[in-house]
């Protein structure tokens, strides 16, 4: 019964995005999909493990540069490039994880910010011979066309990114239902009790850190292939809070939150920047208002209303109410 319910959710989402594909322009939809993958990692860290991270762009850059190095210097197959970007994300988060997850939540946020700045200067200045500094790496023409889904073509790329996003969504859904997901929530709410039950808080957090940042690296790899271009700009310190903002906007710890947040944020940015140059003012004020209004975000507020009106009795499990205080 449970399985039937969550396939239902996936089908619904598929249908919705299919409709969206017809209505809205393609670049916007692709941007939303990649951004929601980017946000999923942050959402998992913030909503499940209670870690707030201002350094997600660092892992985004790791994934993007992993892909870009392969496509610029070695091979031509974009699929292998994406795989390598993913692998780079795994390696980096395995290495830095043990140092970072020992820290308190507020220190964790700031240390991640520091990592993002380090990666930025590393890519812009110190490794400038390899990364070409601010000019970035261009490899759009180097990518070979592949048989089934040609990633060079935006329409095929849309299908690929869409499939990836759905797979990830199902994966996070699976994690939520598993014992591991329960353990993650438990480290957020009461780590002493979990330790008492015989689990290692450190290992749980480390694994969560790896999962979340690999997701982020995957988003970076997708960005690299989609634009065919990578520059240090993607890890610029000014954009460090984007994923956190979108996570909170969509609703922390909800499954649909990242997608809703990404649509709202990208849409707003497009819309507002069309009229006025300084969209920061509006995004900032919006953020303050959301924080003043409550902590649930768009999806967290909509979910109970939707559940009532559509008579879907709790198909969409809401977990954000569990655990009032993060670490």
């Amino acid at each position, binding site marked *: 019964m449970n399985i039937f319910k969550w396939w239902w959710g996936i089908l619904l989402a598929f249908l919705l995005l299919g409709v969206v594909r017809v209505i809205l322009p393609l670049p916007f939809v692709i941007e939303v999909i990649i951004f929601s993958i980017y946000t999923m990692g942050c959402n998992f860290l913030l909503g499940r493990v209670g870690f707030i991270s201002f350094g997600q762009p660092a892992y985004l850059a790791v994934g993007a540069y992993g892909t870009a190095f392969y496509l610029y210097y070695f091979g031509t197959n974009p699929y292998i490039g994406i795989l390598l970007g993913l692998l780079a994300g795994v390696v980096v988060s395995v290495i830095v994880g043990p140092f970072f997850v020992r*820290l308190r939540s507020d220190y964790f946020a700031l*240390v991640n910010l520091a990592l993002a700045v380090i990666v930025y200067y590393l890519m812009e200045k110190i490794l400038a011979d390899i990364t070409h500094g601010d000019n970035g790496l261009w490899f759009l023409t180097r990518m070979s066309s592949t048989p089934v889904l040609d990633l060079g073509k935006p329409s095929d790329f849309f299908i690929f990114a869409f499939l990836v996003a759905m797979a990830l969504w199902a994966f996070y859904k699976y994690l939520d239902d598993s014992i591991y997901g329960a353990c993650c929530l438990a480290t957020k709410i009461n780590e002493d009790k979990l330790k008492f039950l015989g689990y290692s808080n450190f290992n749980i957090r480390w694994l969560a850190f790896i999962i979340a940042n690999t997701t982020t690296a995957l988003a970076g790899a997708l960005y690299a292939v989609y634009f065919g271009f990578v520059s240090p700009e993607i890890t610029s310190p000014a954009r460090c*809070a984007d994923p956190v903002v979108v996570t909170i906007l969509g609703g922390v710890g909800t499954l649909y939150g990242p997608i809703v947040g990404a649509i709202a944020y990208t849409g707003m940015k497009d819309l507002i920047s069309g009229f006025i*140059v300084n969209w*920061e003012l509006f995004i*900032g004020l919006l*953020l303050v208002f959301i*924080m*003043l209004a409550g902590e649930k975000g768009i999806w967290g507020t909509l979910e109970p209303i939707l559940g009532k009106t559509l008579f879907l009795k709790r198909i969409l499990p809401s977990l954000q109410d569990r655990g009032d205080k*993060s670490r």
Partner: protein
Amino acid sequence: MMDTQLLISGVIFGLSIGSIYFLLAIGLSLCFGLMRIISLDQLLYYSIGAFVSYTIYVATGNTWIGVFGGMAAAGIVSFGVERFVYLRIYERDIAFTMIASFGILIAGVGAIKYIWGLVPRPAPIPIETQATILGTEIPVYRLMVIGISFLVYVGIWLFLNRTITGKAIRAGIEDVEHVEGLGINVYKLFTITFIIAGTLSGLAGGLHAPLIMVDPHMGLHVLAFVFMVVIIGGLGSIKGTLASAFIVGQVTSLGSLIYAPLAQMAPFAIMLLILLIKPTGLYGSKLLKR
């Protein structure tokens, strides 16, 4: 290996940079210690201080009036923000106040862009004269910045140790609930602390403006460095903030003498190292844990 003149000017440069970071970080540190908020919007008061003092300079031609004007403007804005935003969210989780403060910072940057435009502007140095120390020419202005921030440190120390309000603030850093139990209005303390923090950030902005260009993103540029100072010193500790501001200033300036790109990277490496050894920072107290 390094020639003395270069070394002396490097040390002075590091001290002046460290002084600016110290003025900014002390506000953040006090806010965290007393109210348990991470107030990213201090960087906004820094930009406001810089822009207002620049504008007043252009109008009157006197930089010192400009610096005082910048301080006053930063204090007033911080008072308004505290009243309208923070009073409603003090009770919330630290992550949420952090995001709200980031929202204020971004909105403020947008407002500054709207008022003053995107173009960076050069602010003039008030004192052009050079002093000679051990045969090295040192700009007097940098020495004055160091002196002012030292005076601020002494002033803050006297305020926290010799006045009733300051003692209440220190007690609040240890345990807010007990202070409230003694019949002291803690929200008044919060407001006072926040205004002090905002004013000091404004002072930092006004003093820093002649050394760099005034541009809307200046707050975001120093953000990472200021946070590093606070983290290395330990959130909530004034002595630690002073020590780490000194370390970060020296590492930035001497690092750049050895190898230029190191200037931005080296402090972060130091921070990672210190946090690995002592996850609460140099002087971070155990009481503040969780």
